[in-house]
């Protein structure tokens, strides 16, 4: 079942390679739509009764002695992210229909390969499959930026690749240490995530601290946490529209998903010990990135920094280690994917028409592009976290989680390392979000209409005669409407997701609480006794 979900994009990639470049976009669209339909089929087959357990699991032994097996399986949180990916790929294919003029076939090929890698990451139940896919997502992204980017794309793609790659190498070390520890206990190698999590949880506090450090190195770079975020604005400004959409919507979630899937269950004691530190990093990230956003003149860089700030909230939710916080953070992963992805699509549409991203040359689009204005203001409001739209639920729950984590709730103590002050400072992020996003809207959307003269008033003549109408064409509206509908649906009816991810979230939080309540976990020495 899950394997077919991987096979469909692979098949599409093959067909793209065979067919002439003219049809590449069409094949990519059909392939990704079929993948989306199949994903919905998987959603229906998924029994949300016990959504905490891994379902639809399937595994094929790869290297027997090493215990390596290509095993897939998904619980409801992973399923949500799979659905998000499956939804966004066709939209970004449709979004960059006319944007790419030369080397079209490779572009869509890389996009579909990226989809395979992302789906594999979320569906992996084997450590090495996860890591391979986690690394493999870098390759297509690198080419997307390096070949199809704008001015200094070479530097951006190299920094992007090396930065994330070094981070994830350290994570590999951490993961292998755990696998080795498991081997030293039981004598046979296995890379199955469940068993490794069990052994990891029984590690001593110091071992857990080291493993957590290793895991965080890789994942912190992927989720751009504060000090290691500088690759993101570079990558975003240089990436093509489809690239930025996928980068913002899904690739950043690999980091948070990694933290949720590996860091929390594997090193519960260390995680709750260092959660205040992680939370402080997030808060600094939120405020720092928001302030930097406010002084940007390049629109895409502004939205990139806003993603840094928003994902600070997401990780803050995880650090709160209570149901509200973690479910808020999972909600946030999905909402941020939708709203920031849509914002990048809108900016891409303007870039396709006027070929500039700087707010000095461009402004006052509302007069000429009313439909575009509606969508942009709508998605700005969604990412500002306006109640009634999806952004609010994620943001409110994460701050709420941070606020109530560790505070006695009507007398009975709750677990969690954070407190009201964390929530208060993170809350300022909400104000700063309003400031820089309205600064963005104030310049780009409202205000006096001015356009770079070279592009003679927006009706743009492409080399391939794609005469883009001044306002959004039907295709572009078709791209944005599903995202808008999802934003409203998740805003008004967040229970659709909240109730479904309740079980796995509780399971993770319970495992962390259980580990903390234990007497200091017996020191597991290298030779394995003294469990």
């Amino acid at each position, binding site marked *: 079942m899950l394997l077919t979900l991987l096979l469909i994009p692979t098949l599409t990639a093959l067909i793209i390679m065979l067919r002439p470049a003219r049809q590449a976009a069409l094949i990519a669209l059909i392939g990704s739509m079929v993948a989306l339909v199949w994903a919905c089929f998987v959603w229906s087959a998924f029994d949300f009764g016990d959504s905490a357990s891994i379902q639809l699991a399937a595994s094929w032994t790869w290297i027997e002695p090493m215990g390596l097996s290509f095993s897939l399986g998904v619980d409801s949180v992973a399923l949500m992210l799979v659905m998000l990916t499956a939804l966004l790929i066709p939209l970004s294919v449709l979004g960059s229909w006319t944007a790419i003029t030369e080397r079209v076939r490779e572009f869509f090929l890389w996009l579909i390969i990226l989809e395979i890698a992302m789906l594999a990451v979320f569906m992996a139940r084997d450590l090495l499959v996860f890591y391979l896919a986690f690394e493999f997502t870098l390759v297509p992204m690198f080419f997307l930026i390096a070949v199809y980017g704008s001015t200094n794309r070479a530097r951006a793609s190299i920094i992007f690749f090396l930065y994330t790659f070094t981070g994830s190498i350290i994570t590999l070390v951490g993961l292998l240490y755990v696998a080795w520890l498991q081997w030293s206990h039981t004598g046979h190698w296995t890379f199955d995530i469940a068993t490794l999590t069990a052994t990891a949880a029984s590690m001593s506090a110091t071992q857990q601290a080291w493993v957590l450090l290793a895991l965080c190195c890789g994942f912190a770079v992927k989720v751009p946490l504060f000090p290691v975020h*500088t690759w993101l604005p570079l990558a975003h400004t240089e990436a093509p529209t489809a690239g930025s959409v996928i980068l913002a919507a899904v690739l950043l979630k690999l980091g948070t998903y990694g933290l949720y899937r590996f860091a929390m269950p594997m090193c519960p004691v260390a995680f709750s010990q260092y959660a205040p530190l992680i939370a402080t990093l997030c808060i600094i990230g939120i405020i720092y990135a928001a302030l930097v956003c406010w002084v940007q003149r390049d629109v895409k860089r502004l939205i990139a920094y806003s993603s840094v700030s928003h994902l600070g909230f997401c990780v803050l939710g995880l650090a709160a280690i209570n149901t509200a916080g973690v479910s808020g953070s999972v909600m946030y992963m999905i909402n941020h994917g939708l709203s920031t992805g849509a914002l990048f699509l809108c900016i891409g549409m303007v870039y396709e028409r006027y070929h500039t991203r700087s707010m000095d040359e461009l402004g006052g689009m509302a007069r000429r592009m009313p439909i575009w204005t509606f969508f942009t203001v709508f998605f700005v409001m969604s990412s500002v976290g306006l109640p009634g739209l999806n952004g609010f639920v994620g943001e409110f729950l994460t701050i*709420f989680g941070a606020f109530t984590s560790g505070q006695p709730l009507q007398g009975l103590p709750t677990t969690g390392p954070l407190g009201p002050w964390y929530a208060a400072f993170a809350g300022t992020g909400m104000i700063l979000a309003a400031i820089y996003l309205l600064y963005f809207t*104030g310049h780009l959307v409202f205000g006096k209409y001015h356009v770079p003269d070279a592009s003679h008033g927006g009706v743009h003549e492409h080399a391939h005669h794609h005469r883009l109408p001044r306002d959004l064409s039907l295709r572009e509206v078709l791209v944005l409407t599903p995202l808008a509908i999802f934003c409203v649906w998740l805003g008004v009816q967040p229970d659709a997701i909240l109730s479904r991810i309740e079980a796995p979230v509780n399971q993770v939080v319970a495992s962390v609480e259980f580990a903390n309540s234990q007497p200091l976990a017996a020191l597991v020495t290298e030779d394995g006794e003294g469990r």
Partner: protein
Amino acid sequence: MMNLLAQFDLNQVLSLASEETATRGIGSWAGWIPLFPLIAAIACGVLAYRPSGAKTKRAGVICIAGLGFAFVVSVILALNIGHGQGHVTLFEWIRTDHLKADFAFFLDPLTSIMLIVVTGIGTLVAVYASEYMWGDRGYARFFAFVSLFIVAMTCLVLADNLILMYLGWEGVGLCSYLLIGFYYEKPAAVAAAKKAFIVNRIGDLGFALGIMLTYLQFGSVEFAVIFKQIEAWQASGTEISIAIQTIPFLLMLGAFGKSAQLPLYVWLPDAMEGPTPVSALIHAATMVTAGVYLIARMLPLFLLSPYALPTVAWVGCITALFSATIGMAQYDIKRIFAYSTVSQLGYMFMGLGVLSSVGGTFHLFTHAFFKAALFLGSGAVMHGFAGQLDLRKLSGLWHVPGWQIVTASMFVACLALAGFPLTAGFFSKDMILAQAFVTPGPGFEWLGWIGLITAGMTAYYTFRVFFRVFMGPVSFKPGDDHHGVHDDHHFHPHAPGPAINFVLIVLGLGAIFAGWLGVGGESHGWFGGMVHASSANYEAAHEAAHETGFFSNPHQWMMLASSIIGIVGIGIAAYLHLLNRPAAERWRQAILPVARLAEHKWCVDEGYDLLIRRPLRAVGHICYSLGDTLIINGLVALAGWIPRLIGAAVRPLQNGRLQGYGLGMAGGAAMLLIIVWWML
């Protein structure tokens, strides 16, 4: 919406039964109130994006219909609910393990009053705007936003839990952003809209943290649960923890942000950039009173901590005084009325603060009418005189043909605002001031006296506008935005149309007769009964304090004092601005430094910009230029640069000379041998 439709049956409507049926049955109608404006909003939205949308008046009609229907439903509900309560759950919204926030409505007399104000004024403004906004490109878009605003406001008022109220809270913030920035081509309007949204957002943060703290302390965010818990605590006399006492202060922050009180009032005067119906509806009658409603709704919680209400009272009083002083020195009519709104809101907060919840809410009720009338009147003037709002350039409108109705309604509204005896403003303000002198509290007497002085100032600046603009010799210069085509010298203002006149008359009558609702009967007539039946009820001991003596009875005494103050204020205004206008200039010269400072709004805006905005942007620049590019990218570049450095250092070793290498090899061999020798 599903269970809403299930309960709707016709006979229930006709029966108009007494209170006890006002439980689930009629309460379910509450769902209709936000639904119709929502439909209207979507319809107008669709119209706005069809090219022909701007040409037809259909959008206006749809909006008026939607709001009108909502008004009718709220009136029916108000009559039916009476002093009872109603509750209806539309659907589940946020459900994590124990945080339960549903889309559910809670009806009690306080809500009914607010609903009547919101939908009533909303409909009237919609009628007014259908003529006022005619000819503007964004006609349909305007009505879409107005109806969306009413949806958000009704949700706020009807909410049965704090998070849904927060939804309404931010929803009205969004609509005010969209409406202030309606003329989006004017940079000033865009900046004002942004400012309004951000300042509101600062208040909303306080409100959000308040919600979280209430959840922590009460385990739930729903009013029913909270009030029951409070009664239980009061009954059992349990000691109130510090955390609970901080909740009111956080909620207060949200209220002051939304209702433009002292620290966060700067956005309201700039909000006048929006079209006048918006100012009338949102920035005079409905949105700004949300803060007052919040405190009235959560009064039991505020009563828990001893310091909360006095702070509210004092902040209200100081804001009233402060903005009145600025109001006196402004020249733009709408700015003056904006500052007067801030000042009157100060009064309402003062009313709530001194435990006269009836006074506060009644002032809110009456203020909605006469302030809306004032704004719509000045809107008519602006509309007629091509955007002219400077009171130095307008005079003697009373004598211009066609403007008599506008002048009459403006006169009545000014009387009400000034607190002229027997007008609506008089009764509500008098209640607040009387209560100030009675309720024991820190410095409440001073509160009363400052209130009296501010009442005088209010009377002065209101009639300063009236006498300048409407009385005196007829002379006027048109404004600059000539959407009327004709040029200067033979410009003749076009009188307001029937719709505007009708609305002004209705509001004028409201300004006079609304007062009588709160008079008579043992506790301030019908209005008092309604408020006492709601959660904002406070069994003030002051009822008993009503001795019979004239001076000992605060109300009679206060009525006399405030009417005298009002008349004196009007007299001064008449003297300075009607009879002897040059004298006004002389007086101004006499206190020139203070006058000019007041004209510049005590430089509060510049202060905020200097103290907050500019440093933050500077930090942003530093973070970006220094933090990101220099330090972090620097470190990354350094990581790349070190290998290159080592490479350069080692290169000279390879210089191509044969004997150099020989030497190296021999040295190496020697070292090895020494090691072997050392190891042997």
